[in-house]
């Protein structure tokens, strides 16, 4: 390793400068300014400041960890130096912006507003000096956290995390709990009152912060004393059948009550999440199970939605079916499209497949947009007046009702996914994912296996498209850009390729969270990109990986037993 030959100060300054460049870049991109609008603790801390402090803390911590072997003084020195380097980088930025006001014509975010944020409203030079000092201070604190051991570290980090989360979601929590009260059970207590005390303006009040920190520290201490059980690892290996039924029952009740408790806005967010869960489950079959990288997946979503539009919209005066009549036809059309597009690419592998499917997706979008098919797809105007699904007199016409339709769809598709994964076909897909030639040699018919993967994936996307069309009530070609494909791909990668719960986790993180943090929509794709790269570098198996994949990707190091289950797992030798 490099760190052995390199003096402590050099490692620290190098890492600090990396962190500093990142902090400067994020400031210039406009993230800090946007984040500044959000208050975490009223009058004390904004998200923008927290973000920059995080850059300092992370760099210092990384530097401190590199030199851990050199003893505590070296650790503190490295932390302070790295933090100071980040602070100096920001100081240089402040001074440069002050010296060259014209820089704004190139870097549009290098404005006086940014300087004001960075200098905390102080004069330029004071602000710059302040950052150097702040960097050193925060850096030493971060390094000290490393020295204090894992228990203290966990407590501090979870307290910080809780404050960050509550501060960020303050508005949302207020919106959700506004209507709640306990007067129904005879208690004179309103959540609004609690809120006024805990939260102030757009963030936590100081008292609220102290309460949150105290609660988190208390919980951690109790946990450490063994009073509270540590949360069990998520994947328990064996569970009795009755336990399982109770769990599933409780979970279903929770899911069914969710939109009623959380309100319309959250129902809308969950609808979005569910549509992406449906697509994610489909792409998970193609990419996660069968290992066929499909970048044109949005095409099937589009075919499902357009199929629904063409079949139900009275604008065309052709079919005018009801939603339930049209749905099987639309899904059938998508499956057909999946097979038709699948046949030509049977022989193509890897990145070539990615590019071809990307081409397919773009072709479908461009055709929908073009004048050539205007009679059918309505060109840029799209198709309006798409039928809503209805059972008897119950029309799925608002977010809460659609939630139940989508929930039913997800449960169905999730169930099919699980059964497919455990079936003979599922094993064939995974064999093919690992090695096509070997799979063929052991008697797997690659043609049908691949086509079935495409067809199943397409069917799920078609269903998602059909529901999406009904939800919006119209389809436009703009809804089906390449970014949807990338979004779906990203969510299954974040969740863990081939993992069904991973799809749900991924959709919540990549679709749900951004919906809740709408004001940062501008940086959504930037964050996606960063998340994709960072995940691939540090945790390629995803947040909730399939057990076998995790073993494979970490084959050289024994998996920590509390992460996978209680039984020691056989460690598979690396395959390639």
């Amino acid at each position, binding site marked *: 390793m490099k760190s052995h030959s390199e003096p402590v100060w050099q490692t620290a300054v190098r890492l600090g400068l990396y962190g500093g460049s990142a902090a400067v870049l994020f400031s210039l991109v406009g993230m800090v300014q946007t984040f500044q609008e959000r208050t975490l603790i009223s009058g004390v801390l904004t998200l923008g400041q927290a973000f920059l402090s995080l850059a300092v803390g992370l760099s210092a911590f990384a530097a401190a960890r590199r030199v851990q072997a050199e003893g505590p003084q070296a650790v503190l020195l490295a932390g302070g130096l790295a933090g100071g380097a980040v602070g100096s980088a920001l100081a240089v930025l402040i001074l440069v912006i002050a010296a060259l006001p014209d820089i704004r014509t190139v870097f549009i975010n290098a404005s006086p507003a940014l300087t004001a944020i960075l200098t905390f409203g102080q004069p330029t030079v004071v602000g710059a000096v302040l950052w150097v000092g702040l960097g050193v201070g925060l850096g030493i604190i971060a390094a000290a956290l490393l020295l204090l051991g894992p228990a203290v570290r966990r407590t501090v980090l979870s307290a910080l995390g809780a404050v960050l989360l509550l501060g960020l979601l303050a508005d949302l929590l207020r919106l959700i709990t506004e209507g709640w009260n306990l007067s129904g059970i005879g208690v004179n207590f309103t959540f609004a009152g609690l809120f006024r005390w805990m939260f102030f303006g757009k963030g936590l009040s100081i008292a609220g912060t102290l309460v949150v920190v105290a609660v988190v520290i208390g919980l951690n201490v109790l946990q450490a004393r063994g009073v509270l059980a540590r949360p069990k690892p998520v994947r328990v290996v064996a569970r009795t059948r009755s336990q399982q039924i109770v769990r599933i029952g409780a979970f279903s009740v929770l899911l069914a009550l969710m939109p009623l408790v959380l309100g319309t806005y959250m129902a809308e967010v969950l609808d979005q999440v569910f549509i992406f869960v449906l697509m994610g489950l489909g792409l998970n079959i193609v990419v996660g199970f069968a290992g066929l990288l499909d970048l044109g997946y949005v095409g099937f979503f589009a075919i499902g939605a357009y199929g629904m539009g063409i079949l139900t919209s009275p604008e065309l005066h052709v079919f005018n079916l009801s939603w339930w009549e049209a749905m099987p036809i639309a899904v059938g059309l998508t499956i057909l499209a999946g097979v038709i597009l699948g046949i030509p690419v049977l022989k193509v592998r890897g990145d070539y497949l990615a590019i071809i499917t990307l081409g397919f997706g773009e072709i479908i979008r461009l055709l929908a947009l073009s004048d050539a098919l205007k009679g059918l797809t309505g060109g840029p105007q799209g198709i309006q007046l798409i039928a809503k699904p209805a059972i008897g007199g119950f029309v799925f016409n608002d977010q809460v009702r659609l939630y139940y339709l989508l929930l039913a769809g997800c449960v169905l598709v999730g169930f099919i996914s699980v059964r497919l994964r455990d079936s003979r076909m599922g094993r064939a897909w995974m064999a093919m994912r690992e090695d096509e030639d070997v799979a063929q040699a052991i008697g797997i018919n690659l043609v049908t296996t691949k086509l079935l993967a495409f067809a199943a994936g397409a069917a799920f996307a078609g269903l998602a498209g059909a529901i999406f069309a009904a939800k919006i009530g119209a389809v436009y070609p703009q809804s089906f850009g390449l970014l949807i494909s990338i979004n779906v791909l990203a969510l299954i990668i974040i969740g863990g390729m081939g993992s069904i719960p991973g799809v749900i986790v991924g959709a919540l993180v990549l679709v749900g969270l951004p919906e809740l943090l709408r004001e940062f929509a501008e940086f959504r794709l930037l964050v996606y990109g960063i998340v994709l*790269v960072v995940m*691939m570098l540090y945790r390629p198996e995803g947040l909730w990986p399939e057990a076998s994949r995790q073993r494979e990707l970490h084959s050289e190091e024994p998996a920590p037993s509390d992460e996978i289950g209680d039984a020691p797992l056989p460690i598979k030798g690396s395959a390639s």
Partner: protein
Amino acid sequence: MLMTRLRRMSGTDVVMFIVGTVITIAIVYGSLVTLASGKYSLDQWENLVVYGLTQGSIYALIALGYTLVYGILRMINFAHSEVFMAGPFTAFFVARALNASGFLAAQPLLGMAIVALVAMGTSMGIALLVERIAYRPLRNAPRLVPLITAIGASLVLQNVFRGLYGSGLERYPDLAVLSGEFSVLGVRFLKTQAVVIVAAVLLMAALYAFVQLTKTGKAMRAVSEDKDAAALMGIDVDRIIATTFAVGGALAGAAGVLYALIFGQVQFYMGFVPGIKAFTAAVLGGIGNVPGAMVGGLFLGVFESVGPSLFLDGLGIPAPAQLKDVISFTLLVLILIFRPSGILGERLSTKKA
């Protein structure tokens, strides 16, 4: 083995043969109808071809970046289209400053050279950065992993540049020297078109000489043949890979300036379409093959410029120019299916890497 394979694949092969035949017949029929109708004059055809050559030489320059990297790492550098965008988008601000100070009007050649150098340098730097951060740590990872980081890097670059320079269209200053047209052998060229074609040809010749004649070029070829053997011969493989990214990036930056010369506008999203077209060109010529990328680029440029008027019009499709991109994507799909080795390449797409 071969017989079973034949028997198994025959169904799909038949389908693909039919698809290929239908498309060929449609193209021939459409072209004949258009030519017979005499809707376009010879002059218009000439214009379309010249336009296509101009576009094509830009595609060729970008395609070289894909092909060089593929030749060495056997991976598609998805972030290359953003490398292409980074150069001219950054150089725009230099061009604007030079224009405002009157330098560009007084010394158009020197000014252009400065702008081009800035663009090439920026693109080169970005390419090196991407290689260092997103690809080098993953050199021995499973196939899909670097592909996904490449997509991630591409998103990051697009949005970083959007955040830095804004999301609007920026207009390059017009050069008085380059307005107007002239003709060679009766074919009329805009001056910008001529500059683009000549510059692209010179750059390609320089690259070819670099790869064939210099010691570094020789090392690049060695690494592309066999990384381990090259390392045993004392070649610093990491350095050669970085050099390859740098050369590809510089060419993309130059292509970006030429693109800006023709279209006049730059924007953070400008890389996507030319990027994928250039990839098509690289595949068309046989990916990993340097002259192939050049031929492929020129062919694709002419094909998509002439195509809509030539055969789509004849097939009675309204507003055929809208479907220009569809033609390129379809061509890409068809080549990958029917002749993945491209015009000059070896068969690679089904090879397990």
